């Protein structure tokens, strides 16, 4: 009755075929089945943003999606975005500005930030704060993160000049 379902999906560019019980959410699937533990679990009710991943290019809360809903989709986690180099400049800016302390919110934060910068190349500080309004950080107080994002936005604009 609650038997595992076969799903075919792509995770960080790798095509996978797996059987997973329907109740397993995408965050737990990534962590427990694929051992990609960079996606973190903070609340399991969609409030904190720690589990943010990309599905078919759009950011989603992995705790609010079933693994079986990812069938036929392309999922990108922090490991994938990191290894591909896509967020290398963001990671460098986070390091420079100490925009992470414990690091637990950081994967979700980086993915959310990258989402913003793909849509807007000149976001104001208020706009940055607004876009990140669903990502909880208890350590930094957010300012260093905003500083890092603003710096990267500026650098990316300079590069495309």
């Amino acid at each position: 009755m609650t038997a595992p379902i076969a799903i075919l999906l792509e995770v960080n560019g790798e095509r996978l075929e797996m059987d997973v019980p329907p109740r397993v959410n995408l965050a737990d699937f990534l962590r427990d089945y694929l051992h990609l533990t960079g996606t973190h679990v903070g609340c399991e009710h969609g409030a904190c943003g720690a589990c943010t991943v990309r599905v078919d290019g759009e950011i989603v809360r992995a705790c609010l999606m079933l693994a079986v809903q990812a069938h036929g989709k392309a999922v990108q986690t922090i490991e994938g975005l990191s290894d591909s180099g896509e967020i290398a400049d963001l990671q460098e800016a986070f390091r420079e500005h100490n925009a992470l302390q414990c690091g637990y919110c950081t994967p979700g934060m980086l993915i959310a930030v990258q989402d913003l910068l793909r849509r807007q190349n000149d976001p104001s500080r208020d706009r940055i704060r607004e876009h990140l309004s669903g990502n909880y950080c208890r350590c930094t107080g957010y300012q260093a993160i905003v500083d890092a994002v603003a710096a990267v936005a500026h650098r990316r604009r300079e590069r495309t000049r």
Partner: protein
Amino acid sequence: MKASAFTYARVASIDHALEILSVHGEQAKLLAGGQSLLPAMNLRLVSPQIVIDIGELAELRGISIDRGMLRMGALTRHVEFLNSREVAASAPLLVDAVKHIGHPAIRNRGTLGGSLVHADPAAELPACMLALEATMIIRSRNGERRIAAADFFKGIYTTALHQNELLVAVELPVASENSIHFFHEFARRHGDYALAGIAAKATVANAVLSDLRAAFFAVADRPVLAEAAAGLVNAAIVPKLISEASAALGDELDPSEDQQASSSMRRHLARVLFRQCAEALVLRGGLNGATA
């Protein structure tokens, strides 16, 4: 906080979904965006035996305009409202409203149909549908029926939808040229559920409002159209008039008390919203009237 086990059915057609619904009734839940259902399931507040995933049904998607009516499929994701030219042109109120729904990651998955059927009293879209005189298009194995928004929202988490029915689309009249709108809500933090909110649509004729539909949310167990809005119609909207109408609104509303706000708090905020709405409409409509 792991959901209870369930059987999962990814349906390929509306008919298939309806069939499962009619067989399993209360034991089945429809899964669209999952942004309301999944938190509830993770918290074990709801434990369906069967989850019917309608998320891939093409028939439930699409935004189109035909003969003066905007039609939006129930599976329209919130984010699509922000990007749709049709919606921007024909129902700009929805564009303003959607910006207040949760956060980007929530908007990428959450759906119009999900929000309307979940009927959270503090949700934005039900109030918008009320203001915009939308019609819900509902299908069951018996065929299709249409319910006006005014008759659809029955109470907290309760709609006129029967257990074996599926909301397939929403239709509403395209905004006319002399249509103006106003949307605002008060929430403790960006993206939170509102403490009080207003979704308003009005028609301008001869420098006055010929029509005003002001739907409030988070002030009752369902969205409510303010009768006090009538006080602003066909009149010069001067401060005295706004005050009177706002007082009438206060009398009309009877918000319940909860952890987030007291009854008088919500009533007060509703009146502030009403005032802000009136002043904004005067500006947007180039109306006769002076603002306070």
